[in-house]
């Protein structure tokens, strides 16, 4: 990889990625690249295949074909726990807070996968609510607090690429605003973020680039500075 040092470091590359749930063919050849430190969104309608793309990266769907390179390493044959240990933090759409664990147990559950993660203290500074409720049952938190917990949980692990699935879904505007601040802070720390997002107004000011997904394929790539000129294209795809 040293010969590529003048190019930006490619942290994730999907090539011709197909994914299947049983008989249903969900992803039809996804091609995308995410460089280190970038915040990239996957936009699209419900059922377009955005969440499945994240799950396919984690090897959490049924059958897959194609190629997924993480830090230049092919990962198609890796088990999910090996993928996480490459520095990938995954925050699922349903948040995945464990009801049989306390808030603090939820927070410290994922093992540290590399150095440079946030300490428990830093996390509690970023999310004071979680500190106050650290001994509550995980699922007794409000939706917003659960989302904070789901995010905070992967920040502790030192993962340097976050896959975040619909983190603003169903949350109050003030919480969404807080999540936006958190994402900016993480981006400033140099983390790579792939964001699946329905709320385009949340994603637009944060992202470097957007991929539009439709019918399991990338149909458009829009960089942040093209956003205004391509707004009509985007509106057509998102149906807003």
């Amino acid at each position: 990889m040293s010969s590529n040092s003048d190019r930006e470091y490619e942290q994730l590359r999907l090539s011709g990625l197909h994914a299947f749930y049983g008989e249903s063919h969900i992803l039809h050849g996804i091609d995308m690249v995410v460089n280190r430190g970038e915040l990239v969104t996957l936009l699209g309608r419900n059922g377009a295949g955005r969440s499945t793309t994240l799950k396919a990266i984690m090897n959490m769907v049924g059958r897959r074909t194609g190629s997924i390179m993480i830090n230049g390493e092919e990962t198609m044959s890796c088990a999910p726990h090996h993928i996480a240990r490459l520095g990938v933090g995954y925050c699922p759409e349903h948040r995945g807070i464990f009801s049989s664990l306390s808030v603090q147990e939820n927070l410290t559950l994922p093992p540290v996968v590399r150095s440079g993660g946030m300490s428990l203290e830093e996390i509690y500074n970023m999310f004071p609510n979680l500190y106050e409720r650290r001994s509550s049952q995980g699922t007794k938190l409000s939706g917003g607090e659960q989302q904070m917990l789901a995010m905070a949980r992967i920040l502790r692990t030192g993962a340097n690429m976050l896959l975040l699935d619909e983190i603003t879904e169903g949350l109050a505007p003030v919480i969404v605003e807080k999540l936006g601040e958190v994402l900016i802070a993480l981006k400033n720390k140099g983390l790579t973020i792939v964001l699946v997002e329905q709320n385009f107004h949340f994603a637009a000011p944060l992202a470097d680039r957007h991929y539009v997904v439709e019918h399991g394929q990338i149909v458009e790539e829009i960089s942040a500075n093209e956003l205004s000129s391509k707004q009509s294209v985007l509106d057509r795809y998102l149906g807003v």
Partner: protein
Amino acid sequence: MSMIFGVPVAVLSGQLLIGIINGAFYALLSLGLAVIFGLLKIINFAHGAMYMLGAMTTVLMFDYLGVNYWAALLLAPLLVGAFGVVIEYFLLRRIAGQDHIYSLLLTFGVALIITGVLVNWFGVSGLRYTMPDMFKGGVNLGFMFMPYYRAWVIVAALLVCFATWFMIEKTKLGAYLRAGTEDSQLMQGFGINVPLLISLTYGFGVALAAFAGVLAAPIYSVTPVMGSATLITVFAVVVIGGMGSIGGAIITGILMGVIEGLTKTFYPPASSAVVFLVMVLVLMFRPSGLFGKEA
């Protein structure tokens, strides 16, 4: 002699003691089943065979290798646990995520094979295991005679049950187990080696059964078929307690042993049916079990 409801106190407390001891075995066995069910979502029909293997290993290690009781208490669960890991790795893993009926048939088949092979070698008449000298005799408590070994069985079983409960509810490893019970796929996505955790959990669950087998060796007849009869009652205990509840498995186990013992005192003909009667009642009024979470 003092009487309670027309029954001499000595008889009543004697049956109560037997009930508590049987209950301690039920607790150890249903605890192992609950641990396995929690993470693997399978009903381990090979559990009785693992209990029997624990007892048989104890006897055979003593007869052929001179391994004493205390060493067997450690070695038999380790050996049977390792055997469990092998079974998980080569058999159970291949049907993970399939319908319950497959794991049920597979573990039942494993139990039949193990039992059949041992019956072929040792018959069903039972092997002798001599109680360690230090446990011979007992103490007169005034209202009843307490054999030392029976007291030890109760203490040992309760200690192991408590240690297991503590490990699952209060430690980091236990947090993995609890979380894995809810969503093992997400756990693996966090970088936790879930396949390994599953193998070790199955090994640990059957090791608990083997530990019960070692405890049973000096007081019950050790035969290749000793597991099958016990297992049926243990399944009823698990149903009563609620599948997957750790504390529930322990408490229900002891409770059912005591109820069985009391029934034996007051109405002996019903003693082997009473657990199933309780099961029917629990299923009618609280289908998820006394300690089970409502679905």
